[in-house]
């Protein structure tokens, strides 16, 4: 019998704990496949966040460190400075990276740390039960913005890619999505490129992946994919925001 598909060697056999319809699992797969295809799984060191992906250290089939909330880029800096030949990446959600960890991500980028950041943006705090995030859309209802996020007093979504692209030392900053197969294929290309740049010592790379949270959005998995397309992408346009190599 011919094998047409198998689980990536970059993932362990531990069953994922993610909710039905959440795209964290797909993003894990893309990261794992990229590490395997680039031949760097054996020298990869993951840094897991606090949030829905807190157990990422159980899922990626490589060495890993669990960071305090928001501090993954600082932890990754420590690892990479000790092992410059390792492929070090953080996997962080939007609460972790864009709220409590804003200083760490900005300064890791400013120093041009030769790291890869996988930034999963689902516009809400998932693990803690659906509270408002800095990335929550204006008008979006969450448990802590029950009437919908209001511009006045709660502000408007932070756009991380646009912001980090202004920092001189970033090598690659891109926003992708995984809500359709073509988008997923493009997302993998971006993730692989980010790791390749790290392998080539080009500096800081970040791929923001728009992700779903059917549970806390109060939508079915299919509706959630549609919400990404129709509601999130207009606020978070997909594309390459910075590429030192000049490509797109």
């Amino acid at each position: 019998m011919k094998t047409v598909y198998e689980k990536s060697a970059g993932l362990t056999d531990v069953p994922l704990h993610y909710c039905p319809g959440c795209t964290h699992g797909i993003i894990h797969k893309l990261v794992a496949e990229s590490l395997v295809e680039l031949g760097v799984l054996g020298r990869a060191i993951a840094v897991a966040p606090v949030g829905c992906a807190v157990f990422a250290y159980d899922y990626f089939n490589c060495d890993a460190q669990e960071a305090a909330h928001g501090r993954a880029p600082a932890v990754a800096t420590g690892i990479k400075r000790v092992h410059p030949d390792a492929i070090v990446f953080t996997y962080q959600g939007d609460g972790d990276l864009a709220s409590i960890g804003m200083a760490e991500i900005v300064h890791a980028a400013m120093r041009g740390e030769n790291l890869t950041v996988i930034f999963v943006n689902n516009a809400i705090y998932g693990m803690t039960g659906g509270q408002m995030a800095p990335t929550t859309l204006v008008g979006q209802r969450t448990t802590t913005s029950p009437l919908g996020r209001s511009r006045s007093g709660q502000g408007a979504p932070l756009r991380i890619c646009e912001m980090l692209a202004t920092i001189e030392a970033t090598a690659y900053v891109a926003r992708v999505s995984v809500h359709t197969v073509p988008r997923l294929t493009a997302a993998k290309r971006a993730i692989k490129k980010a790791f390749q740049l790290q392998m080539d010592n080009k500096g800081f790379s970040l791929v923001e992946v728009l992700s779903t949270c059917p549970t806390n959005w109060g939508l079915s998995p299919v509706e959630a994919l549609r919400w990404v397309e129709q509601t999130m992408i207009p606020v978070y346009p997909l594309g390459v925001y910075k590429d030192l190599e000049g490509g797109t």
Partner: protein
Amino acid sequence: MARKLMKGNEVIAAAAINAGCRYFFGYPITPQNEIPEYMARELPKVGGVYVQAESEVAAINMVYGAAGAGARVLTSSSSPGISLMQEGISYIAGAELPCVLVNIMRAGPGLGGVQPSQADYFQATKGGGHGDYHVLVLAPANLQEAADLTQSAFDLADRYRNPVMVLADGMIGQLMEPVELLPARPAVDLPPKDWATTGTATSGGRRRVINSLYLYPDQLEQHVHALYAKYAAMEHAEVRYELHQCDDAEVVIVAYGTTSRIARSAIEKCRRLGLRVGLLRPITLYPFPFAAFEQVIARTQAFLVVEMSMGQMLDDVKIAVAGRKPISFYGRTGGIVPTPEEVVKQVQALLGGGP
């Protein structure tokens, strides 16, 4: 090796490099800036790395990453900065990572002042951050001891897979004394770092994970019990203290670091006045030298605790003495260093003697 006149902060930094420390992550704060400045200058010369972090919060998490990657790593700060690091120190203790922390204490609370203080005894010895854990705390009283304890700190950290803090104050950090730095020596009989994240290609394919998350209470309780077994081993093997002129002492002064130096001068003056006074100087503040009190308690009439705080080590002295003898306390705070004369007066009040 010849003795060299050096500043306290530089002694600590040089001793760390001698001990094989090659990574430093820190953030500027007075009065410890000579440590990061020395590291920024000297570490690259020995193939090491200095990173100035964006905050103490980031610095301690860089320490976590580097320690988890298997390196000998140092950070230094002063009181408010150590407060900021406490979350990270808790994670480091929980994940059982070795590292060395230096706290050159200044006066608090809040922004406080930049003059010397010993008001971080609680946050150093009683955990400091959240959860059940301890940091091993070494308190040098002179610069030779600062050098020696800093070197030991790295071995202790590796042996117990636990953070070790060198606790001094702005006085020790800023003063100059002749010091002989031990030549760099390999640590002997330390356990291999077979838990460090180096990539599975270098560890026979076995995954290594650095973590302090245990969602099942029975597992977490078991983990904390394992930590406490380590602390029990430290309490058994690592207690250090000094007894000075305690053989005939009617009053025993208890003081560490800078105040122990002042106590020593006060004792000299007291002795000239015919007052029999000695010094019990804790060198490890955690584990605290409780047993040392048993050596002096029979003869002494009273204990006098002297601190540059409102009385923090005092609590541990009360536990050690357990109501058997009276305890007096003399503390200056806010950055004021007590004089030997002030301490002599306290002794005189206790013994009622002298002119």
